[in-house]
Structures are given as structure tokens and as C-alpha cells.
């Protein structure tokens, strides 16, 4: 099932949750919607599910207008951040719910329903919890039951809203791997929302980065990390150093200092220079684009993180390999190995 979203706009009062979003999701893909809170990612997911309605724009499943259908007819599996399990039903009945509420004409008989629920509980490896109630489960178990429940209706699309947001770090890591292998197994077109870049980069085939109701970049995890399309994406994904620079006459200036960096194709004016922390190479003073004095050094396993006061006035943090020990008070030169400059 492909999903196509065209020029979607949704306003809550004067706040534009979605401000003209276009997106195409391929069949069988596992797509991540990544962005800070308030970026519109959950709103987009809820509109695709039919739990919210856009002010304008189109949503199509396999070319068919989805907005003509209610949430009930769309056949979309939705997994909520806080699970939304039916608290008065056993795990078994939770999973069976979607099968039991089917119209009489197509409803399966009891034996088939039981078999199907058993299969799903096996799939999420929790068949031994069938008779428990949601309140008796751990967070990770609840989330897997919520997923089994969503899969029971054999959804055409699976949507997950911050599926691991409420879980602790260890369980989250396990479930991430598990979700990826599950998707590999069932291959249903899936979209999950997250504000955790690591989660998005690790689990998804493609990542959609959103900010303020707009899509900033769509690409593979490598794309969005290695070649961020906008200043926002660069700042949001990975640990970045952000410095205000000026582009004047084809040269990049940082304060009074002309940086020895290529400025091809850049519009003149105030710009921002982005460098990953580990892409700032340390050399002797005078050797690089920047000069600075080391303020603090802390060691993190293979790297040392140094706080450096640049001679232009800003203080930055860099991650340098341990082969050359830095000390507070050292004066060093810094050269960005890879960098990007964005206007504004």
C-alpha cells in the first residue's frame, strides 16, 4: 500500500500544526517521522489514520482518496504512545477486539478468532500473558500487546505514535530491534513517529525530518545524517557546532577572521556554519581555520571532549581522538574536515 499526502494543512486556532506537507510513502516501507515536539509529526500521523481531519490537502492510499473514509473504514493499524489498551479487557480480548467488532457478514467464527489471536500473541512473544489484564503488564509488554491488537485487523498500513516514548532506555533499544525484524517479517507499510534521532536512524528505511509543520528533508538515514538539507536538520540530527559567519566576496568570514573555506555558490550575507563535533580537527596554532584556547577536557571512552574558546568570541565543544592529549590552557588550531554553510 502506498500513501500519498499532498499539500496538507491543519491549524489549531492560529497555530499551524501542518503547513503544506507533501509526502509519498512507498509500499512496504518503514518510514520514520522525526522532529521536535510541536513539529506536526503526530498530527500528520493522526490525519493519515483518520483520527484527525486536515483543513485542506489530500491523502490517498494506493491512489484512492482516503479522506472520503472514516477511521473505521481505512483499515489502518494505530499504536498509541500510551498504548490505549482496553483496561477492562484481558490481553486476549484486547487483541481479539478488532475481530469481534467486524460486521456480522464477514466476522470470523469463535475458533478462527481464537486461533488468530493465538498467532498474534506468538508473534509478539507474549502468548503466556493472554489471561492477564493491562494493569498487570510492564510498559514494554503493553506496547507489544498494543501492536498485536493493531495487527489483528490485518491493517493495510501500520502507524505508530512514539511507540517507545514511554519506555526506559534498555527496553526501548530491545523493542527497536524487534520492531525492525517484525517489519521485515510482515512487510506492511509502516510509519512511526519519534523525536529520538537515534531511533529514527536505526529503525527506519527512510527518515522524514519535520519542523514547525513543514518537512525539512526526506532521505535515507545516511542522507539526513551525512548531507543535511537545511540548517535545522543539521542542528537537530547529530551533535553539531553552529557558528555565525558572513559570506563576503566569495570568502567566509568569522568575525574579523577570514576562514580558509570554500564559499562557492553561497549567497553573500549572514550565514551559519555547521560542523559535527568529531569533524573539527585539532592542529598546531595557525594551522587551521580557527584558533582557540582549550578550557576544559573530559574523556568519553575513545574520545576527549574539549571546550574551546575561539578567538572570535564563541565557545564550542569538540570531540577529538585520544591520540593527542589536550590540556586546559592549550592554544590550538581547528580545521573543519567536513562542514556545511546555510544562509540565514
Amino acid at each position, binding site marked *: 500500500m502506498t500513501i500519498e499526502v499532498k499539500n496538507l494543512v491543519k491549524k489549531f486556532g492560529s497555530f499551524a500544526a501542518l503547513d503544506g506537507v507533501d509526502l509519498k510513502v512507498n509500499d512496504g516501507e518503514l518510514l520514520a517521522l522525526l522532529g521536535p515536539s510541536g513539529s506536526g509529526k503526530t498530527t500528520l500521523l493522526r490525519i493519515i489514520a483518520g483520527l484527525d481531519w486536515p483543513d485542506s490537502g489530500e491523502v490517498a492510499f494506493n491512489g484512492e482518496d482516503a479522506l472520503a473514509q472514516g477511521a*473505521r473504514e481505512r483499515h489502518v493499524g494505530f499504536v*498509541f504512545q500510551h498504548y490505549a489498551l482496553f483496561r477492562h479487557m484481558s490481553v486476549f480480548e484486547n487483541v481479539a477486539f478488532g475481530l469481534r467488532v467486524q460486521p456480522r457478514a464477514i466476522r470470523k467464527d469463535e475458533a478462527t478468532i481464537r486461533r488468530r489471536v493465538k498467532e498474534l500473541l506468538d508473534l509478539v512473544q507474549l502468548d503466556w500473558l493472554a489471561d492477564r489484564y493491562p494493569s498487570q503488564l510492564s510498559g514494554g509488554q503493553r506496547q507489544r500487546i498494543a501492536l498485536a491488537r493493531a495487527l489483528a485487523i490485518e491493517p493495510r498500513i501500520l502507524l505508530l505514535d512514539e511507540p517507545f516514548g514511554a519506555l526506559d532506555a534498555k527496553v526501548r533499544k530491545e523493542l527497536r530491534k524487534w520492531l525492525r525484524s517484525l517489519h521485515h517479517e510482515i512487510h506492511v507499510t509502516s510509519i512511526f513517529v519519534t523525536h529520538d534521532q537515534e531511533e529514527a536512524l536505526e529503525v527506519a528505511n527512510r527518515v522524514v525530518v519535520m519542523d514547525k509543520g513543514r518537512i525539512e528533508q526526506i532521505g535515507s538515514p545516511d542522507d539526513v545524517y551525512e548531507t543535511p538539507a537545511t540548517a535545522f536538520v543539521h542542528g537537530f540530527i547529530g551533535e553539531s557546532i553552529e557558528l555565525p559567519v558572513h559570506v563576503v566576496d566569495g570568502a567566509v568570514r568569522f568575525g574579523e577572521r577570514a576562514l580558509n573555506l570554500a564559499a562557492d555558490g553561497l549567497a553573500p550575507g549572514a550565514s551559519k556554519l555547521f560542523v559535527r563535533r568529531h569533524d573539527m580537527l585539532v592542529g598546531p596554532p595557525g594551522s587551521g581555520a580557527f584558533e582557540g584556547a582549550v578550557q576544559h577536557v573530559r574523556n568519553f571512552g575513545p574520545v576527549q571532549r574539549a571546550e574551546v574558546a575561539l578567538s572570535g568570541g564563541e565557545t564550542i565543544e569538540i570531540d577529538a581522538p585520544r591520540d593527542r592529549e589536550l590540556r586546559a590552557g592549550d592554544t590550538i588550531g581547528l580545521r573543519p574536515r567536513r562542514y556545511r554553510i546555510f544562509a540565514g
Partner: protein
Amino acid sequence: MTMQIADSAPLSAPDARARARAAAARNNLRTEPKAVRIAIITLAVLFLSVFVVLPLVLVFAQAFSKGILAYFAALAEPEALAAIKLTLVVAAISVSLNLVFGLVAAWAIAKFEFTGKTFLITLIDLPFSVSPVISGLVFVLLFGAQGYFGGWLRDHDIQILFAVPGIALATTFVTFPFVARALIPLMQEQGTQEEEAAISLGASGLQTFFRVTLPNIKWGVLYGVLLCNARAMGEFGAVSVVSGHIRGETNTMPLLVEILYNEYQFVAAFAIASLLAMLALLTLIAKTILERHLDEGYDVNDH
């Protein structure tokens, strides 16, 4: 030979006493001196006995003062039976109406956002904050012979005031907040996620209501109905204004108690009063049980 480890040696008697004193000192930080504690508890128990238990006992003592036969004879009076029947009918009507209204109001408040919501929440409490006599008078103003609809009602030969409809209306008005009040916090806490989940799993509106919403709030509904019923059967002020006190026709139990008392028929008055008192006791017991279940409705899909 092995060395004894000092800590494991039994405490000497003076040490133990010192520890006990220290423990007592710690407790003293948290609680009042014994005399104060006893005084406070005595006061509370005494107050409850005099103001709550004693009247209850007296009601039954008076009711049975001429013996058990007189008690049942008083209850078997046609007038008494009519009052009991009317009270049950009125309670049934107003509780059913308020069950529906309360559910709708709580649903609207807990699950939707709309302008005037705060105003509506305030309005729900109006029947509690206004004197019941005034509630009754409002219906007299509306449906009385000189009232807004009085002429129209007379022309169409519809009797509201001084009849069952008027009594039921006044009771419904006075008892409206109970169900809504019981449900609003419960439904607000539960949110709409379970309903959304049900709909996305293909459930219709009715299926969602009966399979998800209602089971989640059933203890709250019962709690509201219970309190609503207790008040409906016991309501005096509003009903007194609209009833007209027609003997054997528009007297509810509380009204009949007053009439009988004013006629010095103490046994009969207290016999009926004892029924209301029993209702109160049963309500209390049921309320305690329901409150225990009500707690189960909260939590689970945590935040």
C-alpha cells in the same frame, strides 16, 4: 577460638532501654501527647454519636415505640403505600433522566473542547448551590396557572404542577449534578485514546460506547446513580413547593412524614422516616463498596 563480632552481641539491658527511649522520642515528634490524642478522639466520637448516631437510633425507637404491629400497620395505611409508590416512581423517572443527561453532559465536557465549557461546568453545580425551595418555585413560575406556560397547559388539559410530572421535574432538577459530577473526573482522566483505538480497529460508534466507554465508567455510573437515587427519594424542599400535598396522590415519603408529624401521628411519621433512614444506611454501604471499585477505573494507560 573465634572472636565475637561486637554488633552481633546481645544488647545489655541499659542499652535496650536507651534505644526504646530514643524510639519513643522519635514517635513523639510525629504524634501529639497522649492526653491530646485522647481528647481529640473523644470529641470526634462524641460529636458523631450525638449528631449522627443518636438521631438515627431515635428514629427507629420512635417508629417501634408502640410495638412492631403498630409499625407495620402504619406502613400498610393506603396513604403511606401511596407515598412509597409515588416516591419510587419519581425516583425511577428522575434517576433515569439524570443518567442520560449526566452521561451526555460528562461526555461533552470530558471528551470535547468547545466554547462555554467552563460555563457549563459551573452551571452543572447550580442545583446544588441554589436552595431547593427556589428550584421548586421556578417550576411554579413556569407551569403554574399564572406561569409562562400555564395558559397553554390548561388549554391542552395537561397537568404538570400538583401532579407526578411536576414532582418528577423538580426532583430531576435538584438531583441533576450527581451522575455528571461522578463521571466528569473519571472520563477526563481516561481521555479519548481507548475510544480512538476502538474506532481505528473498526468498531462503530455504538460498539465503541457499549464495549469500551461504558465498561470503563460503569462503577462511576453506579456511584452517581446511587447518590442521585438517595437524594431523589429524600428530596423535600423543591417537591414540597410543586406537590400541592394532595393526600394519597402527590405526597412523597418525606412530605408525608412532615404531615403525619404535624398531626401528632408519631409512630406513623417515624415508621416512614425509618424507611428513609434504612435507605440511607444501604446507600452508605453500597457507596463504600462502589468507591473501592471506582479506584480500579483510574490508572493503567499511564502518562
